[in-house]
């Protein structure tokens, strides 16, 4: 409970600041915003959410189904390769597509050179638009849906599928009538994660000139110099997130499918044109979401090869990796703690605080940064005052000026990712399993070690990796909270791109993607391995003395 409250603290700061202002009756900024820009923020945010929801579900569910339940050329590679777009920060993908498709980019220049047309003589999709933002975010975020839905497909009971097949369902029919409805909770969970990330996104929408709630928060803070007004907007965003989470919760409550899967269903063997169609369906999101942007980054990096020989460049990579690793471990440990707390003591207040603590994912990093900075700076001030009066010693800013602040912010921001993954894993361990284990003579710690841990291992690993990759890519909070002379790959890439030096942003961005690939590949391997592990570990052995 205390942990959840602590992690919810930055969000409370936001809510409190907004509430205070509402009560004090100073609505001048807010009413101005309502009259001018907020309707557009709401409209654009909704379009973005709807577009990304459709995009990630189409891409994620179709690829998950194909790679799990069908066999076609390349299927084995796609299983893990479809996770690769996770390593791409959305804003980096946005930079690369802008570089390729903008009117002054190579493609359009070539069209003009070839045809002799000028600007306006031909139609070309404008990449810097809300449609472009939907495309980029969908391409980068669909692996969340893919990952979680695929796990659900894998666990779907063989019996159900085989019953369907014996009743004469074609692959297509069994997808629509059995697999899809059964996987609905997983789809919704994956989509919710993608949508929360969409709401929090700043880099992509700002670069594309799409005004959303998040860009509005920045504009109100920076432009109007009104941090309070910005926090009010953030509080509105919080309300939207609560709604999103309620929808997710509701959809899960209505559908609780506990299935025991003993072995995987026989996959459908696709042949001929159908097989190639399946290959194309998987190759397309992979190419657009990873291969093309990565090639563009590689091209820029070759232009700037000297950078790779500079020692401080490798320091950036080390910093990024270290932060990602530490933050992932801390976040997942806390998520386990909270998930178990919720499982053992499912009282209302505990459930509520745990859910509240998990909302940070949809809050823009910069807002969380403010929510972390204010209490930590106050804590430091208190500590320094005590240390000075008792020991005549000034310890400096132990929390707000060090990595502690940054790690705290990451934990708040990404707790939801690990909490959802771990909770999903824990939900599969039915209470009856605990009971069976106890009947077999296991003590509670043994139950944890011998039953829970093996079953949770995949979820834990997945959570660590998802958080790690997210931390690698995180930018706004890192920018505000980091200590002196401490840079990460994301910070460097952003500074270069923000200066419109896209080519100079290439090496750090490519490095970030490459570093991000390590955990993603680990994740893919764990995922493949778990298919076999599930079979073995579902059997409870007798007690070994």
């Amino acid at each position, binding site marked *: 409970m205390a942990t959840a409250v602590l992690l919810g603290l930055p969000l409370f700061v936001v809510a409190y600041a907004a509430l205070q202002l509402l009560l004090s009756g100073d609505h001048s900024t807010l009413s101005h915003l309502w009259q001018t820009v907020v309707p557009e923020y709401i409209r654009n945010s909704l379009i973005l959410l709807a577009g990304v929801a459709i995009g990630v579900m189409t891409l994620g569910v179709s690829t998950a189904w194909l790679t799990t339940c069908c066999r076609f050329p390349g299927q084995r590679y796609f299983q893990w390769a479809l996770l690769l777009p996770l390593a791409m920060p959305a804003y980096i993908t946005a930079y690369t597509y802008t570089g390729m498709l903008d009117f002054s980019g190579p493609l359009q220049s070539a069209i003009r050179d070839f045809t002799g047309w000028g600007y306006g003589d031909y139609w070309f999709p404008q990449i810097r638009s809300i449609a472009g933002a939907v495309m980029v975010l969908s391409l980068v975020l669909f692996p969340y849906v893919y990952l979680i839905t695929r796990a659900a497909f894998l666990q779907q009971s063989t019996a159900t599928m085989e019953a369907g097949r014996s009743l004469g369902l074609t692959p297509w029919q069994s997808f629509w009538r059995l697999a899809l409805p059964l996987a609905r909770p997983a789809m919704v969970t994956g989509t919710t994660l993608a949508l929360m990330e969409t709401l929090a996104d700043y880099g992509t929408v700002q670069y594309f000139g799409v005004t959303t709630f998040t860009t509005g928060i920045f504009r109100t*803070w920076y432009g109007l110099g009104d941090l309070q007004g910005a926090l009010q907007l953030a509080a509105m965003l919080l309300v939207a997130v609560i709604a999103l989470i309620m929808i997710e919760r509701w959809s899960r409550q209505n559908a609780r499918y506990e299935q025991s899967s003993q072995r995987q269903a026989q996959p459908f063997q696709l042949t001929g044109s159908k097989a190639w169609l399946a290959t194309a369906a998987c190759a397309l999101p992979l190419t657009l979401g990873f291969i093309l942007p990565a090639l563009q980054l590689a091209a820029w990096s070759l232009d700037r090869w000297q950078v790779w020989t500079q020692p401080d460049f490798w320091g950036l990579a080390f910093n990024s990796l270290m932060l990602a690793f530490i933050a992932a471990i801390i976040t997942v440990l806390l998520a386990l703690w909270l998930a178990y707390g919720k499982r053992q003591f499912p009282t209302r207040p505990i459930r509520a605080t745990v859910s509240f603590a998990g909302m940070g994912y949809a809050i823009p990093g910069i807002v969380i940064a403010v929510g972390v900075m204010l209490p930590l700076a106050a804590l430091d001030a208190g500590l320094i005052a005590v240390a000075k009066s008792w020991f005549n010693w000034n310890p400096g800013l132990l929390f707000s000026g060090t990595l502690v602040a940054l790690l705290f912010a990451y934990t708040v921001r990404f707790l939801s990712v690990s909490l959802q993954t771990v909770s999903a894993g824990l939900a599969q361990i039915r209470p009856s399993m605990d009971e069976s284990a106890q009947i077999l003579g296991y003590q509670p710690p043994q139950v944890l070690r011998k039953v829970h841990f093996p079953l949770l291992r995949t979820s834990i690993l997945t959570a660590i990796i998802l958080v790690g990759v997210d931390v690698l890519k995180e930018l706004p909070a890192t920018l505000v909270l*980091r200590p002196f002379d401490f840079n990460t790959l994301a910070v460097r890439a952003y500074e270069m791109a923000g200066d419109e030096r896209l080519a100079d942003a290439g090496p750090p961005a490519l490095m970030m993607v490459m570093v991000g690939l390590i955990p993603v590949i680990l994740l893919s391997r764990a995922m493949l391995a778990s298919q076999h592990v599930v079979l073995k570990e579902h059997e409870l052995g007798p007690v070994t003395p």
Partner: protein
Amino acid sequence: MMKFVTLSIAALSAAIFTLNSFAAETVNLYSARKEALIKPMLDDFTKQTGIEVRLLTGGGDALLTRLQAEGENTPADLFLTVDAGNLHRAAQAGVFQELGSPLALQAVPSQYHGDGNLWLGLSLRARPIFYAPDRVNPEQLSGYADLADNRWDNNVCIRSSDNIYNQSLTAALIQHWGEEKTEEWARGLVDNLAKPPVGGDRDQIKALANGVCDIAVANTYYLGVMEASDDAAEREAASKVKIFWPNQDDQGTHVNVSGIGLTKHAKNADNARRLVEFLLSPEAQQWYAEANNEYPIRRGVDWSDRLMNWGEFKMDSLPMRHLGENNADAVRLMNRAGWR
């Protein structure tokens, strides 16, 4: 699992303590100017004086919020921003004290001092109009008012009003023209836009070069970067545009400053003073012109060849504090005018 935990705790504590260690002579700088654009000069300073500069870059407002939250415990000695608006806001928030260096005060013309000399400009950045000489006769242009003129319907390129440079330009116009006229101007400008206001200044120049529009607004140093680029396409784009210096017969071309202030709770005030004096020295000022294509703030410092090439011009002499004072009004006005 336990191994992981122990390892991470060890790494965490190591990180905390190494980052908290203090070198003998240091000065701590919060900078809204990006690392690549200031580090070379700071390294020079360290070489000359032996004083180590510890740098934290970030957005101006975010750094200011951090400065305020840290209060008297802040490690920052100096706060550097790239626009007058943030400097003004910092001064209002009470995080600055007077630098107390007569040398520095003297080097900077008085319109580039903050109220009560709480901050000083370091370099000047001009925001003129660019045009395509093959399609536009410069005689058709006179000043910023042209941007809202019907004649340029569907032919103006400018970036989003999220950008501080556009906010400062609008703030300056509010001071010169009054709010009503400026709002009318902003509406006219929005009507004239050739494309949605996306991308940065460099993108506007490229759009102009590629025929998307006939006139554009951008800061001059972006053209400098493009002219010196090792990408042939960028150099070619730069060669297709020309600078028009607006409002030479009245207020002058809009300029903004990058500037610096000494924090109220600076622990290394002497070192900070030396750093500011260094940044205002003729050599450093020349470096700004050569490397960053910005205009030196110190009088009597030679402009680089490139700056001379673009031509001399009359700068708007509006005291910088107005840019800060009018910033929020400018943003509200642009919100109303539908300038995204």
